[in-house]
């Protein structure tokens, strides 16, 4: 009975994380379309929501990696997963508050790894999976997106260089409807799967599913719905940072950045790498900017973003470990997760009440 209650709390918390993931990350997906004028904010966010939902259904490779290849499912309990999720959500909201596009995905993995280490020691972590399927792709992905976007925009400018700027700009703006759509689809398929993976891990730990089981349909559908709703709710503070503060983009740069991002994320998803769409799209944006003019990239802002990236895994791990410690104060049953949930909800209510009193979120200028 007690473990059933914890499982219900874990599923609810995982879906809440998925919602914040859509809220936090998809801003990055639509930022380039909005900043170049390819789509109005409402249209871009609505389209991204629908494609996030669809994308969640097209693959389960990343879910399998998160459920089976990062932590040892045999020593994991639903409470460990819960503590990891709270660590990830806390870090997500902290970086959202300060307008920093850090990685929800790495926050999730960091949180779960931290709580698993706090509960069962370092042998709970599968080093091979963590390094080979998370850390190495995490370093390579933004560099790859940077390179792809830079090469693509360089060749693209050569092809259309002598044509009338108005026609070229209009053409790439139409193209951004396609590239932005592909990026949203890619985001849905990679990011929603992390939540599917975590819920599947909790179900395996609870004994509801066998080891190495695939996510059930209800897990896929609920994860898809949560990320789509989060996306629709928007994330204006981060849209502003990515869309206008890193570089001021033209439509061709927006197209190549989104195309590079979609290509890297989709290819990585196919091989089960749980990437950060935030890392990838920002790498693409910087590559598209640097190819035109290195000084066009506001490297100071880019540096702040890189700092947030580097901090994400350890910070979420520390919070996840601390949350696990707090839950254990109240024993191994459902009381600890219940108290932490109530404390978190109270804190969130206070934070949002303060935000509402201060006024509406920042809009794209």
């Amino acid at each position: 009975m007690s473990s059933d209650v914890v499982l219900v709390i874990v599923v609810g918390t995982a879906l809440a994380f998925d919602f914040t993931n859509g809220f936090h990350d998809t801003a990055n997906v639509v930022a380039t379309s909005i900043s170049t004028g390819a789509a109005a904010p409402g249209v871009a966010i609505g389209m991204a929501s629908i494609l996030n939902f669809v994308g969640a259904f097209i693959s389960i490779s990343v879910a399998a990696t998160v459920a089976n290849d990062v932590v040892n499912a045999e020593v994991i309990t639903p409470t460990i997963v819960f503590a990891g999720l709270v660590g990830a959500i806390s870090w997500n909201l902290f970086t959202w508050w300060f307008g920093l596009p850090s990685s929800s995905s790495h926050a999730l993995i960091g949180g779960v790894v931290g709580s698993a280490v706090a509960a069962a020691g370092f042998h709970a972590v599968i080093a091979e999976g963590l390094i080979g399927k998370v850390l190495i792709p995490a370093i390579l992905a933004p560099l790859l997106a940077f390179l792809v976007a830079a090469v693509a925009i360089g060749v693209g400018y050569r092809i259309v260089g002598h044509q009338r700027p108005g026609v070229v700009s209009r053409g790439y703006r139409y193209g951004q409807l396609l590239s932005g759509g592909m990026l949203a689809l890619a985001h849905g398929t990679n990011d929603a799967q992390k939540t599917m993976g975590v819920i599947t891990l909790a179900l395996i730990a609870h004994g509801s599913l066998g080891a190495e089981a695939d996510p059930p349909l209800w897990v896929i559908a609920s994860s898809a719905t949560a990320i789509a709703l989060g996306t629709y709710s928007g994330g204006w503070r981060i849209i502003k940072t990515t869309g206008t503060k890193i570089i001021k983009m033209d439509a061709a740069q927006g197209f190549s950045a989104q195309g590079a991002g979609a290509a890297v994320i989709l290819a990585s998803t196919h091989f089960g790498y749980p990437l950060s769409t935030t890392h990838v799209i920002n790498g693409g944006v910087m590559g598209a900017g640097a190819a035109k003019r290195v000084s066009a990239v506001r490297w100071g802002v880019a540096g702040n973003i890189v700092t947030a990236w580097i901090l994400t895994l350890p910070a979420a791990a520390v919070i996840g470990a601390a949350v696990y410690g707090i839950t254990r104060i109240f024993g191994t049953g459902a009381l600890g997760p219940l108290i932490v949930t109530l404390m978190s909800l109270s804190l969130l209510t206070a934070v949002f009440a303060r935000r509402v009193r201060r006024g509406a979120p920042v809009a794209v200028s």
Partner: protein
Amino acid sequence: MIATIVDWSDLLQTIGASILAGVGITVAFSVVIWGTARFADLNREDRPAPAVAALAASGLALAVVAAGVVFGIVVMTTK
């Protein structure tokens, strides 16, 4: 140690597919824009044959973009 942990075959395929798709789609779409712009200019200059050739190149490039997108989605859904 890292050399044995990482599945280099998967990683290299990811890198290759990303470069091919990311650069390929942008190049093909740039040709779509080039062909459309040239078609309008050549038509205005009353040069129908080159205009049709530019439009054909544009149409072919658009087909490449569409095929690339469809191929990517099919590959994603078949693993």
